[in-house]
């Protein structure tokens, strides 16, 4: 259990194991649509967690994060189309995405994470950078097929939807462990220090800009990898995947789940995706439910106003309070004179 972090106790481990077993047997009993829905949730959860590394652990709001996600989907698609849909090309796509994401994150960080620059400027700059990548993809028709989107064939291994469900689940687990390890590592601890008090972290001798850059790169690579898997799942990539809306989705997932908790990303993605699915099913009742963005935007404003810590945040808060109360009650019992 050590790989899952130090705060892992028996109760948590058992409940996670039960969840894992349930997820393993879900495909046996569920329809094709439910299966796709779950696969989507697994992949987008990784994307949300990659966003949480930035937003939750460094406090940096990146409005161009979709360029990694969409970039991954496009790199996979373009390579499958231009070379051939086979496993070696898939490996190549992963390598190219890692390279693309780390270079992209490096450039993005160098421009936006300036010393003394405020969170506001950084946010505006990342928005502009995200938009430039989307525009380039739209204009570069010969490779990306412009705004029509890119359809492509995928390796035979990925074609079975049941198998792909397990691949996505496996991907989620692996990425969750890797990202957790990163947060638990000394570099991750420095990131937490930066979030809590950037000035102090600087006084302690840490080059905060460098550590933010590292977190941006980790987030970028994780986002890019989830992009490839998502692209293969859809067998399609379009510029919508690169747009600010896609970034805002990640922001919504982490916000609803709770920022700075990593697992919050998974919870948030699950809830938001299920909610979205529920609304889409209501569309036969009234066409307003097709305008999912209105509801997601409203949900978003409501969460920021009333629940800034998200669901996981509230949950932890509740349990900490309860633990405190139990402790106090015990104290009272041992000292009845007070």
């Amino acid at each position, binding site marked *: 259990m050590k790989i899952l972090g130090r705060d892992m106790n028996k109760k948590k481990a058992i409940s996670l194991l039960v969840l894992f077993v349930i997820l393993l047997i879900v495909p046996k009993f569920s329809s094709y649509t439910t299966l796709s829905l779950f696969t989507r949730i697994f992949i987008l959860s990784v994307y949300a967690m990659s966003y949480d590394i930035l937003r939750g652990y460094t*406090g940096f*709001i990146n*409005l161009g994060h979709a360029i990694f996600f969409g970039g991954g989907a496009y790199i996979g698609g373009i390579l499958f189309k231009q070379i051939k849909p086979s496993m070696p090309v898939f490996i190549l796509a992963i390598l190219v995405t890692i390279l693309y994401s780390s270079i992209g994150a490096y450039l993005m960080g*160098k*421009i936006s994470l*300036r010393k*003394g*620059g*405020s*969170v*506001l*400027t950084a*946010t*505006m*700059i990342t*928005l*502009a*950078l995200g*938009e*430039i990548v989307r*525009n*380039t993809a739209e*204009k570069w028709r010969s490779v990306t097929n412009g705004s029509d989107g890119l359809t492509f064939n995928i390796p035979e291994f990925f074609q079975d939807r049941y198998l792909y469900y397990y691949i996505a689940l496996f991907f989620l687990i692996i990425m969750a462990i890797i990202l957790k390890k990163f947060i638990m590592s000394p570099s991750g601890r420095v990131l937490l220090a930066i979030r809590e008090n950037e000035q102090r972290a600087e006084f302690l001798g840490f080059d905060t800009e460098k550590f933010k850059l590292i977190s941006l790169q980790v987030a970028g690579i994780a986002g890019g990898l989830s992009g490839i898997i998502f692209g293969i799942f859809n067998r399609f990539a379009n510029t919508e995947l690169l747009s*600010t*809306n896609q970034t*805002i989705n990640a*922001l919504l997932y982490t*916000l609803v789940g709770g920022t700075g908790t990593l697992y919050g990303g998974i919870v948030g993605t699950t809830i938001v995706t299920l909610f979205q699915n529920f609304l889409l099913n209501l569309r036969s009742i009234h066409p*307003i439910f097709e*305008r999912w*963005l*209105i509801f*997601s*935007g*409203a949900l*978003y*404003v409501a969460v*920021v*106003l009333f629940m*800034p810590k998200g669901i996981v945040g509230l949950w932890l808060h509740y349990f900490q309070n309860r633990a405190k109360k139990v402790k106090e009650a015990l104290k009272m019992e041992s000292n009845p004179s007070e």
Partner: protein
Amino acid sequence: MDIFLTLVINGLSEGALIFLMASGLSIICGLMGVVNFSHGALFVWGGYTFVWIYRMTNSFVLGILAAVISVFILGIIFEKFFVNKVYGNAPAQILITLGLQIVFTDLVRLLWGATPIAVGRPAYLAGTTIIAGVTIVHYRVFLIVVGLLVALIVGYILSHSKTGMIIRAGVQRPDMVQALGINIKLYFTIVFAAGAALAGLGGALYAPLVGNVVSTAGAYNQILAFIVVVIGGLGNFVGTAKGCIFLGIMGAFVAWFAPSLAVVANVGLMAIVLAFKPEGLFGTAVKK
């Protein structure tokens, strides 16, 4: 030479439009430290209200008035119910205004549809004049005049009137201004709504220039405004005005000589400015 002049006029008129949006953004940021990510939605609302009223009454002036007033009211609502809950918390401001941007841009699509609506210029602004081989589009000249007028009026209010004095004082020390018995919250609301109204005016004037109005125009223009504000220095009114002229003219020349680079050039410029002069090209930015 004639091409040069035409491009300068085009650039200045584009700059005037960006200015309408960026100046509001810049003043709001200077006074309240809020970067309003819902500015694009306000811009689009201005555009659609204008087109709606203009098509109904056939009066250009009425359309503009309706746009400015409706967006002013929208600005008051945004400030009163949402933005003032999160003062001093920059990430929450960004998130909440982003949320408003999503909701209100999509409401436009719900009310008026997602396809572009064509709109013409009024007869008295539609023509062109050719002077010594230079084609001058009347509407562009009109935009330059409006931009100049707004710049002068806002500049005058900020630097010469009592209201401007309070706003400038509020930028420095809002708590002190409050202590002097001035209702600074009221000023916050008014400045936010006024900035919104400028964006609405920008949206209304933008529609006849490009010949249609579409809900995605807001996001695009918002990015241009952000670039200008970053170049000009956050919260710096004069810097923003200069940045608009600069960006507008550069945009016109790039669009003529290297059209494929149009978007890249703007962001490239911003990146270069930030790399070498992070406080903005024209003076220092206000740090909040």
